[in-house]
């Protein structure tokens, strides 16, 4: 059952991922990306990671809905009225992507991966909470400062007026 779910979600995740760059509307591409993220979140749930899996699903739904607004703002081909190619260097990009996948796959198959050490905790979410509030606290502190810095930087970048108001 789990194996079937894994392969179904895996094929769907990659399929929707490929659809992002195959559909001819940027709004549709956003929702294809959302579907791909939902499948990846499902894979995390299969791994027994309830909290990160649900977090991925909820966060990506929000993120892609915000992204859809931006996609419509910057759409190159509004409403499919003006069919046009949105790609450049297609053949080279395909070759590089295929080469990277082949190299990664070779590494994955040929590497002698270490054996499993330890057992999953009874409640992985609890263990994660203990880690980020204990020995891994610097990670959360850096993440918090990075979020604040991004909020300030994105507002500064996106506003039309500069630091001294409209006097330019």
């Amino acid at each position: 059952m789990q194996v079937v779910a894994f392969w179904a979600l895996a094929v769907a995740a990659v399929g929707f991922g490929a659809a992002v760059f195959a559909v001819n509307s940027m709004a549709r591409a956003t929702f294809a990306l959302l579907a791909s993220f939902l499948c990846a979140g499902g894979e995390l749930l299969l791994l027994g990671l309830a909290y990160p899996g649900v977090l991925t699903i909820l966060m990506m739904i929000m993120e892609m809905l915000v992204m859809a607004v931006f996609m419509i703002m910057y759409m190159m081909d509004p409403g499919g009225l003006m069919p046009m190619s949105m790609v450049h260097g297609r053949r080279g990009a395909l070759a590089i992507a295929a080469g990277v996948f082949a190299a990664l796959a070779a590494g994955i198959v040929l590497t002698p991966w270490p054996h499993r050490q330890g057992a999953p905790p009874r409640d992985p979410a609890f263990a994660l909470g203990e880690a980020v509030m204990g020995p891994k606290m610097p990670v959360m502190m850096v993440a918090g400062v990075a979020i604040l810095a991004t909020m300030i930087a994105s507002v500064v970048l996106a506003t039309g007026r500069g630091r001294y108001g409209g006097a330019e």
Partner: protein
Amino acid sequence: MSLQAFLLLAAALFAVGLYGALSQQSVVMLMMGLELMINGILVAAGAFWHYVAPGAADGQVLLLVALTVMALEMAAGFAVVTALYRAREVDTTDDAGDLKG
């Protein structure tokens, strides 16, 4: 299911994202490619946690960091696109190649 299967899925997602990031003209579509690449990293981090070291929380913390980075990347990327569009009415990578070597 095995570690290899999960890592192959992650590699496939990463490669599809790389193709998008390299081939798309629109800056926002390029960012979709980057997001897809980070999606692969999420799956790989989860698989490493489950199959290599489930006793330690490190894999989960890496997942949390990757998720945060993904959201920050999108926010900062859209801010840059907005600034670029406001300054020069440009939304494709070809028109923003000033620093190209």
